[in-house]
Protein backbone atom coordinates (compact mmCIF):
# COMPACT_ATOMS: atom_id res chain seq x y z
CA UNK A 1 0.00 0.00 0.00
CA UNK A 2 1.34 3.44 -0.80
CA UNK A 3 1.49 6.03 1.91
CA UNK A 4 1.04 9.75 1.36
CA UNK A 5 3.81 12.17 2.22
CA UNK A 6 2.10 13.68 5.25
CA UNK A 7 1.30 10.28 6.66
CA UNK A 8 4.86 9.11 6.07
CA UNK A 9 6.16 12.19 7.87
CA UNK A 10 3.89 11.55 10.83
CA UNK A 11 4.84 7.89 10.95
CA UNK A 12 8.56 8.67 11.04
CA UNK A 13 8.04 11.37 13.65
CA UNK A 14 6.00 9.01 15.80
CA UNK A 15 8.60 6.27 15.42
CA UNK A 16 11.43 8.54 16.46
CA UNK A 17 9.59 9.88 19.49
CA UNK A 18 8.50 6.39 20.49
CA UNK A 19 12.05 5.04 20.23
CA UNK A 20 13.41 7.99 22.17
CA UNK A 21 10.99 7.60 25.05
CA UNK A 22 11.68 3.89 25.21
CA UNK A 23 15.15 4.81 26.48
CA UNK A 24 14.51 7.57 29.01
CA UNK A 25 18.07 7.41 30.29
CA UNK A 26 19.32 8.38 26.86
CA UNK A 27 16.99 11.33 26.88
CA UNK A 28 18.13 12.53 30.26
CA UNK A 29 21.87 12.23 29.71
CA UNK A 30 22.34 15.40 27.62
CA UNK A 31 20.16 17.33 30.07
CA UNK A 32 22.17 16.12 33.03
CA UNK A 33 25.34 17.00 31.16
CA UNK A 34 23.93 20.47 30.58
CA UNK A 35 23.27 20.89 34.29
CA UNK A 36 26.66 19.53 35.30
CA UNK A 37 28.64 21.68 32.86
CA UNK A 38 26.90 24.82 33.99
CA UNK A 39 27.73 24.05 37.61
CA UNK A 40 31.38 23.51 36.70
CA UNK A 41 31.87 27.18 35.96
CA UNK A 42 30.65 28.61 39.29
CA UNK A 43 32.54 25.90 41.16
CA UNK A 44 35.73 26.51 39.25
CA UNK A 45 35.58 30.27 39.35
CA UNK A 46 34.19 30.73 42.84
CA UNK A 47 32.45 34.00 42.09
CA UNK A 48 29.73 35.98 43.78
CA UNK A 49 26.36 35.45 42.20
CA UNK A 50 26.28 39.01 40.93
CA UNK A 51 29.58 38.55 39.10
CA UNK A 52 28.45 35.16 37.88
CA UNK A 53 25.51 36.88 36.25
CA UNK A 54 27.92 38.67 33.88
CA UNK A 55 29.27 35.38 32.63
CA UNK A 56 25.97 33.61 32.73
CA UNK A 57 24.89 34.07 29.09
CA UNK A 58 28.16 32.72 27.75
CA UNK A 59 28.30 29.82 30.18
CA UNK A 60 24.71 28.91 29.48
CA UNK A 61 25.20 28.92 25.76
CA UNK A 62 28.49 27.02 25.72
CA UNK A 63 26.91 24.36 27.91
CA UNK A 64 23.84 24.18 25.65
CA UNK A 65 26.08 23.88 22.59
CA UNK A 66 28.17 21.10 24.09
CA UNK A 67 25.25 19.06 25.37
CA UNK A 68 23.48 19.37 22.02
CA UNK A 69 26.61 18.07 20.34
CA UNK A 70 26.61 15.08 22.65
CA UNK A 71 23.15 14.07 21.61
CA UNK A 72 23.68 14.56 17.86
CA UNK A 73 25.33 11.22 17.55
CA UNK A 74 22.04 9.43 18.10
CA UNK A 75 20.36 11.16 15.16
CA UNK A 76 21.36 8.68 12.49
CA UNK A 77 23.75 6.27 14.11
CA UNK A 78 21.46 3.59 15.47
CA UNK A 79 19.46 3.54 12.25
CA UNK A 80 22.64 3.30 10.22
CA UNK A 81 23.91 0.44 12.37
CA UNK A 82 20.91 -1.81 11.89
CA UNK A 83 20.27 -0.95 8.26
CA UNK A 84 17.08 1.02 8.80
CA UNK A 85 18.63 4.09 7.25
CA UNK A 86 19.15 2.35 3.95
CA UNK A 87 15.60 1.07 4.04
CA UNK A 88 14.36 4.59 4.64
CA UNK A 89 16.40 5.82 1.70
CA UNK A 90 15.00 3.11 -0.54
CA UNK A 91 11.40 3.12 0.63
CA UNK A 92 10.19 5.44 -2.12
CA UNK A 93 9.32 8.39 0.07
CA UNK A 94 11.29 11.61 -0.26
CA UNK A 95 14.38 11.17 1.85
CA UNK A 96 14.31 14.89 2.66
CA UNK A 97 10.89 14.47 4.27
CA UNK A 98 12.17 11.65 6.42
CA UNK A 99 15.22 13.66 7.41
CA UNK A 100 13.01 16.59 8.44
CA UNK A 101 10.87 14.27 10.56
CA UNK A 102 13.90 12.71 12.23
CA UNK A 103 15.56 16.03 12.92
CA UNK A 104 12.37 17.56 14.27
CA UNK A 105 11.87 14.61 16.58
CA UNK A 106 15.48 14.90 17.69
CA UNK A 107 15.07 18.58 18.47
CA UNK A 108 11.86 17.96 20.40
CA UNK A 109 13.55 15.54 22.76
CA UNK A 110 16.89 17.31 23.08
CA UNK A 111 16.73 21.00 22.20
CA UNK A 112 13.20 21.64 23.42
CA UNK A 113 13.96 19.74 26.60
CA UNK A 114 17.03 21.91 27.07
CA UNK A 115 14.90 25.02 26.71
CA UNK A 116 12.50 23.76 29.39
CA UNK A 117 15.34 22.97 31.78
CA UNK A 118 17.14 26.26 31.20
CA UNK A 119 15.32 28.23 33.95
CA UNK A 120 16.92 25.90 36.50
CA UNK A 121 20.31 26.68 35.05
CA UNK A 122 19.39 30.34 34.93
CA UNK A 123 18.70 30.38 38.63
CA UNK A 124 21.99 28.61 39.31
CA UNK A 125 23.88 31.25 37.33
CA UNK A 126 22.07 34.20 38.81
CA UNK A 127 20.06 35.17 35.77
CA UNK A 128 17.05 37.27 36.86
CA UNK A 129 13.65 35.70 36.24
CA UNK A 130 12.63 38.61 34.04
CA UNK A 131 15.21 37.52 31.49
CA UNK A 132 13.93 33.98 31.26
CA UNK A 133 11.54 34.52 28.36
CA UNK A 134 14.21 36.00 26.10
CA UNK A 135 16.71 33.41 27.28
CA UNK A 136 14.38 30.55 26.46
CA UNK A 137 13.38 32.05 23.11
CA UNK A 138 16.99 32.46 22.09
CA UNK A 139 17.76 28.92 23.20
CA UNK A 140 14.77 27.58 21.29
CA UNK A 141 15.90 29.25 18.06
CA UNK A 142 19.52 28.34 18.65
CA UNK A 143 18.97 24.68 19.47
CA UNK A 144 16.74 24.26 16.44
CA UNK A 145 19.44 25.74 14.20
CA UNK A 146 21.98 23.55 15.91
CA UNK A 147 19.89 20.43 15.35
CA UNK A 148 19.94 21.22 11.66
CA UNK A 149 23.65 21.95 11.50
CA UNK A 150 24.12 18.75 13.45
CA UNK A 151 21.98 16.85 10.98
CA UNK A 152 24.34 17.89 8.19
CA UNK A 153 27.36 16.94 10.27
CA UNK A 154 25.81 13.68 11.42
CA UNK A 155 24.86 12.81 7.85
CA UNK A 156 28.45 13.32 6.77
CA UNK A 157 30.05 11.41 9.63
CA UNK A 158 27.67 8.55 10.32
CA UNK A 159 29.53 5.30 9.90
CA UNK A 160 32.95 6.81 10.44
CA UNK A 161 35.08 5.47 13.23
CA UNK A 162 35.33 8.17 15.92
CA UNK A 163 32.86 10.22 13.99
CA UNK A 164 31.84 12.13 17.14
CA UNK A 165 35.03 14.13 17.34
CA UNK A 166 34.89 14.96 13.67
CA UNK A 167 31.22 15.85 14.07
CA UNK A 168 32.09 18.40 16.72
CA UNK A 169 34.92 19.75 14.60
CA UNK A 170 32.51 20.26 11.72
CA UNK A 171 29.51 21.62 13.63
CA UNK A 172 31.18 23.95 16.14
CA UNK A 173 32.65 26.46 13.66
CA UNK A 174 29.27 26.73 11.96
CA UNK A 175 27.60 27.15 15.35
CA UNK A 176 29.82 29.99 16.52
CA UNK A 177 27.52 32.74 15.22
CA UNK A 178 24.70 31.13 17.24
CA UNK A 179 26.80 31.43 20.34
CA UNK A 180 27.59 35.06 19.67
CA UNK A 181 24.01 36.13 19.06
CA UNK A 182 22.43 33.86 21.64
CA UNK A 183 24.72 35.06 24.39
CA UNK A 184 24.18 38.65 23.25
CA UNK A 185 20.40 38.25 23.40
CA UNK A 186 20.52 36.75 26.89
CA UNK A 187 22.97 39.41 28.02
CA UNK A 188 20.70 42.19 26.77
CA UNK A 189 17.77 40.59 28.54
CA UNK A 190 19.70 40.52 31.80
CA UNK A 191 20.65 44.18 31.52
CA UNK A 192 17.04 44.96 30.53
CA UNK A 193 17.94 46.47 27.16
CA UNK A 194 16.24 45.47 23.95
CA UNK A 195 17.28 42.04 22.78
CA UNK A 196 15.52 42.50 19.44
CA UNK A 197 18.68 42.73 17.31
CA UNK A 198 20.32 39.47 18.35
CA UNK A 199 16.97 37.70 18.42
CA UNK A 200 16.28 38.75 14.85
CA UNK A 201 19.70 37.45 13.85
CA UNK A 202 19.02 34.16 15.58
CA UNK A 203 15.66 33.92 13.88
CA UNK A 204 17.26 34.66 10.52
CA UNK A 205 19.88 31.97 11.05
CA UNK A 206 17.14 29.59 12.12
CA UNK A 207 15.06 30.24 9.02
CA UNK A 208 18.14 29.96 6.81
CA UNK A 209 19.10 26.59 8.22
CA UNK A 210 15.56 25.23 8.41
CA UNK A 211 15.06 25.94 4.71
CA UNK A 212 18.45 24.92 3.31
CA UNK A 213 19.83 22.38 5.74
CA UNK A 214 17.29 19.61 4.99
CA UNK A 215 18.64 19.41 1.45
CA UNK A 216 22.24 19.48 2.58
CA UNK A 217 21.59 16.81 5.20
CA UNK A 218 19.83 14.61 2.65
CA UNK A 219 22.71 15.03 0.23
CA UNK A 220 25.11 14.14 3.02
CA UNK A 221 23.17 10.96 3.79
CA UNK A 222 23.13 9.97 0.14
CA UNK A 223 26.89 10.39 -0.01
CA UNK A 224 27.33 8.23 3.06
CA UNK A 225 24.85 5.58 2.03
CA UNK A 226 25.98 5.09 -1.53
Amino acid at each position, binding site marked *: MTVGAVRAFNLVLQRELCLSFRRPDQLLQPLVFFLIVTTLFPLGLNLQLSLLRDMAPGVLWVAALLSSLLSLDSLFKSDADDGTLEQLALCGQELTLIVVAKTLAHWLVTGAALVLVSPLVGIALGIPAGAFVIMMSSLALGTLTLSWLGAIGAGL*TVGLRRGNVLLSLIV*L*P*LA*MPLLVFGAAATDRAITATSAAGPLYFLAALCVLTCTLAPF*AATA*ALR*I*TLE
Partner: protein
Amino acid sequence: MWTWFYKLASPPHVYAAAGALTPWFAVSAAAAIGYGLVGGLVFAPPDYQQGDAFRIIYVHVPSAWMSLFGYTSMAVAGAIALIWRIKIGHAVAAATAPIGASFTVLALVTGSLWGRPMWGTYWAWDPRLTSELILLFLYAGVMSLRSAFEDPARGDRAAALLGIVGLVNVPIIHYSVVWWNSLHQAATVAKFGKPDMVGSMLWPLLSMFLGFMLFHGAVLCMRLQGEVLNRERQAKWVREAITA
Protein backbone atom coordinates in the same frame (compact mmCIF):
# COMPACT_ATOMS: atom_id res chain seq x y z
CA MET B 1 35.48 24.54 -30.63
CA TRP B 2 34.85 23.47 -27.07
CA THR B 3 37.64 20.90 -26.97
CA TRP B 4 39.72 23.08 -24.67
CA PHE B 5 36.85 22.95 -22.21
CA TYR B 6 36.53 19.18 -22.36
CA LYS B 7 40.27 18.86 -21.94
CA LEU B 8 39.95 20.65 -18.62
CA ALA B 9 38.10 17.65 -17.29
CA SER B 10 40.58 15.11 -18.60
CA PRO B 11 43.17 14.00 -16.02
CA PRO B 12 46.08 13.39 -18.41
CA HIS B 13 45.65 16.80 -19.98
CA VAL B 14 45.37 18.47 -16.60
CA TYR B 15 48.48 16.66 -15.39
CA ALA B 16 50.47 17.75 -18.43
CA ALA B 17 49.14 21.30 -18.36
CA ALA B 18 49.87 21.67 -14.66
CA GLY B 19 53.42 20.52 -15.22
CA ALA B 20 53.90 22.97 -18.08
CA LEU B 21 52.34 25.92 -16.28
CA THR B 22 54.20 25.59 -12.99
CA PRO B 23 57.45 27.29 -14.06
CA TRP B 24 55.54 30.16 -15.72
CA PHE B 25 53.51 30.75 -12.58
CA ALA B 26 56.57 30.46 -10.39
CA VAL B 27 58.73 32.94 -12.29
CA SER B 28 55.99 35.53 -12.67
CA ALA B 29 55.05 35.11 -9.02
CA ALA B 30 58.64 35.72 -7.99
CA ALA B 31 58.80 38.85 -10.14
CA ALA B 32 55.51 40.26 -8.84
CA ILE B 33 56.33 39.49 -5.22
CA GLY B 34 59.83 40.87 -5.66
CA TYR B 35 58.53 44.15 -7.03
CA GLY B 36 55.88 44.30 -4.33
CA LEU B 37 58.39 43.76 -1.55
CA VAL B 38 60.87 46.30 -2.83
CA GLY B 39 58.17 48.84 -3.57
CA GLY B 40 56.44 48.26 -0.28
CA LEU B 41 59.39 48.01 2.03
CA VAL B 42 61.71 50.59 0.48
CA PHE B 43 59.97 53.03 -1.80
CA ALA B 44 56.53 53.49 -0.31
CA PRO B 45 56.46 56.45 2.08
CA PRO B 46 55.55 55.79 5.73
CA ASP B 47 51.89 56.22 6.60
CA TYR B 48 51.17 59.47 8.43
CA GLN B 49 49.14 57.65 11.08
CA GLN B 50 50.78 54.25 11.35
CA GLY B 51 54.35 55.03 10.39
CA ASP B 52 56.31 52.11 9.04
CA ALA B 53 54.05 49.53 10.72
CA PHE B 54 51.58 49.93 7.86
CA ARG B 55 54.00 47.96 5.66
CA ILE B 56 52.56 44.81 7.18
CA ILE B 57 49.70 45.46 4.77
CA TYR B 58 51.88 44.05 1.99
CA VAL B 59 51.64 40.55 3.45
CA HIS B 60 48.52 40.74 5.59
CA VAL B 61 45.97 41.88 3.01
CA PRO B 62 47.10 39.62 0.13
CA SER B 63 47.16 36.60 2.43
CA ALA B 64 43.68 37.43 3.78
CA TRP B 65 42.43 37.70 0.22
CA MET B 66 44.07 34.38 -0.64
CA SER B 67 42.42 32.71 2.35
CA LEU B 68 39.00 33.75 1.03
CA PHE B 69 39.89 33.02 -2.59
CA GLY B 70 41.25 29.62 -1.59
CA TYR B 71 38.14 28.61 0.29
CA THR B 72 35.84 29.84 -2.46
CA SER B 73 37.75 28.03 -5.19
CA MET B 74 37.85 24.89 -3.05
CA ALA B 75 34.09 25.04 -2.52
CA VAL B 76 33.36 25.82 -6.19
CA ALA B 77 35.64 23.04 -7.43
CA GLY B 78 33.97 20.62 -5.02
CA ALA B 79 30.53 21.79 -6.12
CA ILE B 80 31.41 21.28 -9.80
CA ALA B 81 32.62 17.79 -8.99
CA LEU B 82 29.58 16.98 -6.87
CA ILE B 83 26.92 18.37 -9.18
CA TRP B 84 28.30 17.58 -12.62
CA ARG B 85 30.42 14.64 -11.54
CA ILE B 86 33.57 16.11 -13.08
CA LYS B 87 36.09 14.23 -10.97
CA ILE B 88 38.97 16.62 -11.57
CA GLY B 89 37.09 19.09 -9.38
CA HIS B 90 37.73 16.91 -6.34
CA ALA B 91 41.45 16.89 -7.14
CA VAL B 92 41.46 20.69 -7.39
CA ALA B 93 39.54 21.06 -4.13
CA ALA B 94 41.88 18.71 -2.30
CA ALA B 95 44.92 20.50 -3.69
CA THR B 96 43.69 24.00 -2.81
CA ALA B 97 42.72 23.26 0.79
CA PRO B 98 46.14 23.19 2.49
CA ILE B 99 47.33 26.23 0.52
CA GLY B 100 44.31 28.27 1.55
CA ALA B 101 44.61 27.13 5.15
CA SER B 102 48.25 28.22 5.31
CA PHE B 103 47.29 31.67 4.00
CA THR B 104 44.55 31.88 6.64
CA VAL B 105 47.12 31.25 9.35
CA LEU B 106 49.39 33.86 7.81
CA ALA B 107 46.55 36.38 7.66
CA LEU B 108 45.59 35.76 11.29
CA VAL B 109 49.14 36.00 12.64
CA THR B 110 50.21 39.01 10.60
CA GLY B 111 46.94 40.68 11.52
CA SER B 112 47.61 39.95 15.16
CA LEU B 113 51.13 41.39 14.95
CA TRP B 114 49.73 44.46 13.22
CA GLY B 115 46.98 44.82 15.79
CA ARG B 116 49.39 45.00 18.72
CA PRO B 117 50.94 48.38 17.85
CA MET B 118 47.79 49.77 16.20
CA TRP B 119 44.95 48.66 18.48
CA GLY B 120 47.00 47.80 21.56
CA THR B 121 45.99 44.16 21.51
CA TYR B 122 47.10 40.97 19.77
CA TRP B 123 43.52 39.80 19.45
CA ALA B 124 39.97 41.07 19.64
CA TRP B 125 36.75 39.14 19.30
CA ASP B 126 35.40 41.42 16.63
CA PRO B 127 33.34 40.07 13.69
CA ARG B 128 36.07 40.03 11.07
CA LEU B 129 38.74 38.38 13.19
CA THR B 130 36.26 35.88 14.60
CA SER B 131 34.88 34.91 11.20
CA GLU B 132 38.40 34.56 9.78
CA LEU B 133 39.23 32.23 12.66
CA ILE B 134 36.07 30.28 11.88
CA LEU B 135 37.36 30.03 8.30
CA LEU B 136 40.49 28.32 9.59
CA PHE B 137 38.36 25.83 11.53
CA LEU B 138 36.26 25.22 8.43
CA TYR B 139 39.39 24.45 6.41
CA ALA B 140 40.46 22.04 9.15
CA GLY B 141 37.04 20.40 9.13
CA VAL B 142 37.02 19.90 5.36
CA MET B 143 40.54 18.47 5.33
CA SER B 144 39.84 16.17 8.29
CA LEU B 145 36.59 14.97 6.81
CA ARG B 146 38.22 14.11 3.50
CA SER B 147 40.91 12.04 5.18
CA ALA B 148 38.51 10.30 7.60
CA PHE B 149 36.93 8.16 4.92
CA GLU B 150 38.51 4.90 3.85
CA ASP B 151 36.97 5.23 0.42
CA PRO B 152 38.66 8.29 -1.11
CA ALA B 153 35.82 8.94 -3.53
CA ARG B 154 33.31 9.11 -0.71
CA GLY B 155 35.67 11.32 1.28
CA ASP B 156 35.91 13.67 -1.68
CA ARG B 157 32.15 13.97 -1.97
CA ALA B 158 31.63 14.50 1.75
CA ALA B 159 34.35 17.14 1.85
CA ALA B 160 32.82 18.86 -1.18
CA LEU B 161 29.43 19.08 0.55
CA LEU B 162 30.96 20.47 3.73
CA GLY B 163 32.92 23.00 1.68
CA ILE B 164 29.71 24.24 0.10
CA VAL B 165 27.96 24.50 3.49
CA GLY B 166 30.84 26.54 4.89
CA LEU B 167 30.78 28.93 1.93
CA VAL B 168 28.23 31.04 3.78
CA ASN B 169 31.09 32.23 6.01
CA VAL B 170 32.99 33.92 3.17
CA PRO B 171 30.60 36.81 2.52
CA ILE B 172 30.26 37.21 6.29
CA ILE B 173 34.01 37.75 6.56
CA HIS B 174 34.07 40.19 3.68
CA TYR B 175 31.08 42.27 4.72
CA SER B 176 31.64 42.05 8.48
CA VAL B 177 33.31 45.46 8.46
CA VAL B 178 30.29 46.91 6.68
CA TRP B 179 27.53 45.23 8.67
CA TRP B 180 28.98 45.71 12.13
CA ASN B 181 30.92 48.30 14.09
CA SER B 182 34.19 46.51 13.68
CA LEU B 183 37.59 47.30 15.11
CA HIS B 184 39.01 46.19 11.78
CA GLN B 185 39.47 48.76 9.06
CA ALA B 186 36.91 48.97 6.29
CA ALA B 187 37.75 48.08 2.70
CA THR B 188 40.17 50.42 0.95
CA VAL B 189 41.08 48.31 -2.06
CA ALA B 190 38.56 45.53 -2.55
CA LYS B 191 35.65 47.76 -3.38
CA PHE B 192 34.27 49.40 -6.46
CA GLY B 193 35.42 52.88 -7.34
CA LYS B 194 38.74 54.54 -6.80
CA PRO B 195 40.89 52.93 -4.08
CA ASP B 196 41.68 55.25 -1.20
CA MET B 197 45.43 54.81 -1.35
CA VAL B 198 48.22 56.83 -2.95
CA GLY B 199 49.93 55.28 -5.98
CA SER B 200 53.34 54.61 -4.47
CA MET B 201 51.65 52.59 -1.74
CA LEU B 202 49.00 51.04 -3.96
CA TRP B 203 51.03 49.57 -6.81
CA PRO B 204 53.28 47.39 -4.66
CA LEU B 205 50.15 46.16 -2.88
CA LEU B 206 48.44 45.24 -6.12
CA SER B 207 51.64 43.57 -7.21
CA MET B 208 51.66 41.50 -4.02
CA PHE B 209 48.05 40.50 -4.69
CA LEU B 210 49.04 39.37 -8.17
CA GLY B 211 52.18 37.69 -6.90
CA PHE B 212 50.31 35.70 -4.28
CA MET B 213 47.70 34.64 -6.83
CA LEU B 214 50.41 33.49 -9.25
CA PHE B 215 52.21 31.74 -6.40
CA HIS B 216 48.97 30.00 -5.50
CA GLY B 217 48.72 28.93 -9.14
CA ALA B 218 52.22 27.47 -9.12
CA VAL B 219 51.78 25.54 -5.88
CA LEU B 220 48.28 24.44 -6.91
CA CYS B 221 49.68 22.98 -10.13
CA MET B 222 52.27 21.02 -8.18
CA ARG B 223 49.76 19.68 -5.69
CA LEU B 224 47.24 19.02 -8.43
CA GLN B 225 49.70 16.77 -10.22
CA GLY B 226 50.07 14.81 -6.99
CA GLU B 227 46.31 14.62 -6.47
CA VAL B 228 45.66 13.49 -10.04
CA LEU B 229 48.30 10.78 -9.76
CA ASN B 230 46.83 9.55 -6.49
CA ARG B 231 43.38 9.29 -7.98
CA GLU B 232 44.40 7.89 -11.34
CA ARG B 233 47.13 5.50 -10.33
CA GLN B 234 45.65 2.64 -12.33
CA ALA B 235 45.09 4.51 -15.55
CA LYS B 236 47.12 3.81 -18.67
CA TRP B 237 48.29 7.33 -19.32
CA VAL B 238 50.15 7.41 -16.01
CA ARG B 239 52.90 5.19 -17.33
CA GLU B 240 54.10 7.65 -19.97
CA ALA B 241 53.47 10.63 -17.73
CA ILE B 242 55.75 9.58 -14.93
CA THR B 243 58.49 8.01 -16.97
CA ALA B 244 58.67 11.08 -19.19
